[in-house]
C-alpha cells in the first residue's frame, strides 16, 4: 500500500501533471469555465487510473493468496485428517479420565463398608475383652469370646486384603494422567502448527513483499504415544498379549 501511494505521488509530480496544473490555472485565470472543467477532469483522471491499477494489483494478490491457501497441502492435511484425529484423541482423554474417576469412586465406595465393618466388629470384641480383663467373664462366656476372636481375626485379614486390593485399583487408575498428558501434548503441537499457518496466511494476505518463513513444528520424534481407539495406527500391537506374542516370536 505504501508503494502504491508513492507511485501515484511520483506520477502526480511528473512533468505531464505539472503542465496539466499550469493549463488548469491558465483556464481559471482566463475565466473559461468549460475549459477549466475539462482540465480539472483530466487532472483527476491521472489519480483515478492509479487507483484502478492498485485495485487490480490487490485483487490479483488476494486471488494468489487464496490459491496458495487452497494448495497448501499441510493445511489441507490438518483440516481433513488432523483435526478429526485431534477430536478423537480429546474424546479418548474424556473416556480415560471418566474411567479413572469411576474406578477410583467404586474402589472408595467398596472400601468404606469394609472399614465400617472393621470398626464395628472391633468395638464388639473390645467390650467383651474389657469384661475379660476385669475378670467378669464366666468360663462359657470366655469360650464364646475366644470363638468370636477367631472370627474377628479371620474377618479382619479378609477385609484388609480386600481394602488393599481396592487401593491398588485406585493406584492403577491414576495411570490416566501420564497417558492423557501424552495425548494432549500431541493436540497442543497441532494447535501450534495451525497457529503458525494462520500467521503465515495473514502475513501473505497483508503484505506482498514480506517473505514468510515456513516454520514447521518439530515432529515429536517417531514416537506415537498411546494408541487411541478408533484411530488408525498401523504396525501397532493391540495390547500386552500381542507384545508377549511378538517378544516370544523373537525368542523371549
Amino acid at each position, binding site marked *: 500500500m505504501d508503494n502504491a501511494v508513492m507511485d501515484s505521488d511520483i506520477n502526480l509530480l511528473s512533468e505531464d501533471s505539472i503542465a496539466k496544473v499550469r493549463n488548469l490555472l491558465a483556464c481559471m485565470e482566463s475565466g473559461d469555465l468549460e475549459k477549466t472543467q475539462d482540465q480539472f477532469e483530466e487532472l483527476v483522471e491521472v489519480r483515478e487510473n492509479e487507483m484502478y491499477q492498485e485495485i487490480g494489483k490487490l485483487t490479483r494478490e488476494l486471488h494468489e493468496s487464496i490459491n496458495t491457501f487452497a494448495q497448501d497441502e499441510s493445511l489441507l492435511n490438518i483440516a481433513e485428517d488432523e483435526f478429526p484425529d485431534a477430536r478423537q484423541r480429546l474424546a479418548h482423554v474424556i473416556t480415560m479420565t471418566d474411567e479413572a474417576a469411576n474406578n477410583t469412586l467404586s474402589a472408595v465406595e467398596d472400601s468404606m463398608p469394609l472399614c465400617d465393618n472393621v470398626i464395628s466388629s472391633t468395638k464388639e470384641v473390645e467390650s467383651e475383652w474389657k469384661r475379660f480383663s476385669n475378670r467378669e467373664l464366666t468360663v462359657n462366656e470366655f469360650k464364646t469370646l475366644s470363638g468370636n476372636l477367631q472370627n474377628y481375626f479371620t474377618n479382619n485379614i479378609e477385609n484388609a486384603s480386600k481394602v*488393599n486390593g481396592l487401593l*491398588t485399583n485406585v*493406584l*492403577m487408575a*491414576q*495411570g*490416566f*494422567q*501420564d*497417558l492423557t*498428558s*501424552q495425548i494432549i501434548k500431541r493436540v497442543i503441537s497441532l494447535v501450534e502448527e495451525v497457529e503458525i499457518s494462520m500467521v503465515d496466511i495473514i502475513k501473505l494476505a497483508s503484505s506482498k513483499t514480506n517473505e514468510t518463513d515456513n516454520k514447521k513444528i518439530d515432529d515429536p*520424534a517417531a*514416537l*506415537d*504415544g*498411546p*494408541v487411541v481407539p478408533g484411530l488408525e*495406527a498401523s*504396525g*501397532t*500391537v*493391540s*495390547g*500386552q498379549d500381542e*507384545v508377549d506374542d*511378538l*517378544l516370544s516370536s*523373537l525368542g*523371549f
Partner: protein
Amino acid sequence: MAIDKNMKILIVDDFSTMRRIIKNLLRDLGFTNTDEADDGNTALPMLQTGKFDFLVTDWNMPGMQGIDLLKNVRADEKLASMPVLMVTAEQKREQIVEAAQAGVNGYIVKPFTAQTLKEKLDKIFERMDG
C-alpha cells in the same frame, strides 16, 4: 534361588504419577528399596554409581529416552547384565522389536495391570535364575 526383595530398583519415567504408581506396585510386591529418575540423563549417572540391581524405564521422555538409556546400560561394562523392564505407551511393532534387539528383559504397554507387572517381574527373575 529366592528373589532378593531388598534389591535396589530404579524407576525412570517423566511423569511423577507413573513413577509413584510403579513404586507403590513394587512395594506391594515386597520391593521397598526403590529410587526414581525423570529421564535417561538423570538415570544413567545414578545407575553408574553401581547401587542399583534393576531398572524399570519408560520409553518416551524428554532428554534421554528409555531406548537410549537401555543401549547405554548395555554398552556399559559394569551395567551390561542389569535386568531392564520397559513400561511404555509405545506399541509399534518395530519399536518392540528395537527394544528386544537392544536387550530389554521385559516390555509392558501402558495402561497395564498390577498383575502384568508381577508376571513380567517373575519371568525376568526366573530367567536370571536359569
